[in-house]
């Protein structure tokens, strides 16, 4: 599965200056695992060394937050948009 990974401005340096990159995988976990192999400096900003999504990182797959739902087991369809955002935690 190929998806579009959309990144906030703060992460674009870690993605070679790009705000949108291609992702590969049938679940969010697979997409992030693939990212870890290709762009580890980007992936480690989204997940900690245990492989868990960082506490204040939001991920939306086709507009739906994965938080409190399937989290990294969220299916990613062909052509999906995986949107990453910093949470506004703490105001």
């Amino acid at each position: 599965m190929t998806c579009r990974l959309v990144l906030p401005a703060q992460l674009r340096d870690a993605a070679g200056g790009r705000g949108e990159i291609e992702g590969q995988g049938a679940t969010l976990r697979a997409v992030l695992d693939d990212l870890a192999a290709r762009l580890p400096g980007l992936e480690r900003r989204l997940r900690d060394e245990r492989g868990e999504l960082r506490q204040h990182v939001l991920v939306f797959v086709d507009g739906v937050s994965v938080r409190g739902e399937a989290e990294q087991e969220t299916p990613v369809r062909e052509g999906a948009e995986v949107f990453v955002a910093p949470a506004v935690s703490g105001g």
Partner: protein
Amino acid sequence: MAETILLVGTRKGLVIARSRDDRRTWDLDDIRFVTMEVAAVGVDARRDPPRLFAAVQSFHWGSTVVHSDDLGATWSEPETAPVAFPEDADRALRRIWQIQPAPANQPDVVYAGVEPHALFRSEDGGVSFELVRGLDEHPHRPQWQPGGGGACLHTVVPHPTDPQRLLVAISSGGVYRTHDGGASWEPANQGIQALFMPEDQRFPEFGQCVHKVATHPSNPERLYAQNHFGVYRSDDWGTQWQAIENGLPSNFGFPMVVHPSRPETVYNFPLVADVERMPPENRCRVYRTDDGGSTWRALEKGLPGAPYYAAVMRDAMGTDGVDPAGVYFGTRVGEVFATRDDGDSWTQVAQHLPDILSVRAVALP
């Protein structure tokens, strides 16, 4: 000296101050790593030019170590995480509290102290670090408690001549030391009280809330420690500690810094108590001993007048290695002060910065 560089890590970024006139006046670079917390800065003066370090923590994207080999003009980090717990540790890095290069006899060794309680070691000059498992596997580790600032290993004191010896300070675990290069560790807290414990348990083997430990290369067996209630000295590399707080207005505080060329001269910044983290009498005063802690004197010439309420954090004081000493400290209200005469008088280097967490200086030849 050609230039003195002062690294100032703040709650919202890194500021570098530079002096080209023997520390009389300072120019400030624009703030870097905006909105990132810089709890630790470091200088590897074994290299020419010195390698500068900053521990940079994003609220969202985690913690990392960046370094600069051009005196702060550009910064870099490896693609893979410089500091990360191995998979079997089942913990995640929260914060890097200390970056400490080893002495010149271990040219590429750099240590990092982190939260949750752990020590990391680099053998490639501070680019990548590995967990020091000897300390991590210590049976006391599960019993170490978090200090008020977190469960941190905040101080690393390499032995200046013996690469097998290393000492660390943990909140709240106390002081630990190794004689075998980090393979095995022992607590070194004898004589240090833990006032927050029940009365009959105030001198435990470990669990003290040490705030900072400092030493001097010319007298490595001598250590100075600022604790959570208690200022101490050891003359046998931590085997036994004795109080040296007579003459101080309070035995609470955070930083403890030894003069670069006079091992009997030490600086600290007392606060009233843990429940009143303000300077005694609401006066901004650094204290200095010139006799290893037998007597102390207040230094306030050039510092702000009363009332003054701001504190100085444990790593927000440092020296530059020059004689007479440049001593520098940053405050929770974003001021940086400097002395170029061992503390007799002070000038303001900066103000209106974010609250300051870490300060380190280096004088270029």
